[in-house]
């Protein structure tokens, strides 16, 4: 997982930085990586199963693109206090081809034994496992439950955070406060920008429990969503500007509040999150979502089960618009963008730690969409759930 090496090349480049801190030694460079090689398939060809923010997914024929990824991380440690970390991630997101992203690139300053300050491109800690959701090896399940993990797209923040870790007796509390801007590309050449976003992420660990509270707030805008922009233009043209205002996509206020917990006691595993999303635009609906996973570790095998669900808290139709006459089609258009993707999932799987740095996972999801196609994409006429999703993958770290 870890390979410290002294690089004279890097020393040469960075010598100006290191002179004051480590005149003789130069930085220690650590390269590490993670990845998942997986195949995913479903029992229908009438819709495609995706991870959040993917444009294309899996149908009846197995595909690698849904659950596979590869990450590489380099950390240069200049002194006991200052380090620089960059992580590249290759996966399919927004487009139907593998693309490389700079997941993070930040300078970390260790202000004290308990306080770290990071500046640059950092993870946006929206969820309990935000920062390591792409690291399959670090997780029991093959992928984060979509019911919760598709509520906020946006994994990285350009900004600053402060992490304070302190032990109160047997309880270790890690508090993270982040501030910055974020931009996430979405399918169809659109993007979502958070400008600015703030996040609070507090974790209390008391063996065998972990409790987590998270709150993220953002001023957000959706750019380049042609169908949505067309709808808003039409609404304004026909004099329904109040409706257009309710469906605004620029300078919206949003918040995401979540609690979570994990337990790892005598082989019994629990992982659960409950999250509430609120915004002031009807196109990003208010939702409540949750999941709970139960697992049991027997030697190198960990069978697990999870249930996830999402509810919409705002109405699924826009009241007071004509349902007959010339504007009926427009009303249908409005109603189609105020419905969030509702579904529930029952899944079973097993993780097998067959190697010291690799695990094999097999997972079957039984997904039941409600009042629509759920989180499935590229839906064809005649589609209806429930859908079974089969996935097998090997997670590794090095």
């Amino acid at each position, binding site marked *: *997982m*870890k390979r*410290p090496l002294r690089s004279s090349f890097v020393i040469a480049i960075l010598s100006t930085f290191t002179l004051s801190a480590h005149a003789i030694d130069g930085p220690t460079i*650590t390269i*590490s990586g*993670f990845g998942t090689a997986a195949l995913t398939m479903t029992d229908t060809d009438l819709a495609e199963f995706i991870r959040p923010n993917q444009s294309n997914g899996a149908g009846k024929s197995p595909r690698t693109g849904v659950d596979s990824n590869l*990450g590489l*991380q380099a*950390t240069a*440690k200049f002194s006991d206090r200052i*380090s620089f*970390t960059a*992580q590249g991630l290759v996966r399919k997101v927004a487009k139907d081809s593998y693309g490389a992203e700079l997941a*993070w690139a*930040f300078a*970390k300053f*260790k202000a004290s*034994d308990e306080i*770290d300050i*990071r500046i640059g491109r*950092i*993870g946006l800690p929206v969820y309990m496992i935000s*920062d*390591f959701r*792409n*690291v399959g*090896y*670090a997780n029991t399940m093959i992928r984060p439950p979509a019911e919760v993990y598709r509520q906020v797209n946006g994994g990285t923040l350009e900004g600053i955070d402060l*992490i304070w*870790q302190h*032990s109160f007796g*047997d309880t*270790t509390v890690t508090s993270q406060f982040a501030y910055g801007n974020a931009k996430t590309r979405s399918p169809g050449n659109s993007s979502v920008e958070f400008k600015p976003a703030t996040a609070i992420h507090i974790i209390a*660990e008391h063996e065998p429990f972990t409790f987590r509270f998270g709150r993220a707030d953002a001023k957000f805008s959706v750019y380049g969503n042609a169908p949505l922009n067309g709808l808003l233009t039409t609404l304004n043209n026909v004099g329904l500007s109040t409706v257009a205002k309710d469906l605004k996509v620029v300078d919206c206020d949003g918040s995401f509040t979540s609690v979570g917990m994990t337990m*790892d006691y005598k082989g019994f595993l629990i992982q659960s999150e409950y999250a509430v999303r609120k915004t002031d635009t009807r196109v990003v609906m208010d939702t409540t979502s949750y999941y709970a996973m139960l697992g049991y570790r027997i030697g*190198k095998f960990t069978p697990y089960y999870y249930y996830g669900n999402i509810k919409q808290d705002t109405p699924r139709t826009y009241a007071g618009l004509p349902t007959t006459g010339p504007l009926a089609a427009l009303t249908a258009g409005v109603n189609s963008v105020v419905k969030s993707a509702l579904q529930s999932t029952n899944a079973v799987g097993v993780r097998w*730690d*067959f*190697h*010291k*740095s*690799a*695990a094999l996972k097999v997972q079957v999801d039984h997904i039941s969409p409600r009042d629509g196609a759920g989180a499935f994409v590229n839906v064809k006429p005649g589609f209806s759930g429930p859908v079974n999703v089969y996935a097998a993958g090997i997670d590794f*770290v090095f």
Partner: protein
Amino acid sequence: MKTKIGMMLLAAGLGMAAPVMAAELVVIVNPKNPASRMFSEQAAQFFLGKSSLFTPIEYDDGVAIRNEFHAKVLQKDSAQVKTIWSKLVFTGKGTAPKEYKSAAEVKKAVAADVSAIGYIDKAAVDDTVKVILTVQ
């Protein structure tokens, strides 16, 4: 691919078959470190990334004493420990411990860093390091 998985399985099998030694384990720090005694739970937090007050020094994967220390002091198996560190490392929040092959190298690393904490077989103790915990 098949042979690779086969080799991985073989390696995993060999790992499991490695004999667990029943020798006494001691947790060591730099002689200049003011700490004089420590409980297992306190030592464990450094090796699980819960505190960065001390810098943990580890053994390479597969060294027998590593599995024994993980089981007795951290009360986890090595895959669990690896999972915990992979969370810390790939979130950029922590740096995995440096890993060494032998007790001699661990002693050298501990002797070179005032904040280091490591563990060795009791028989390997000498005056370059200070024992702060003996694990039965």
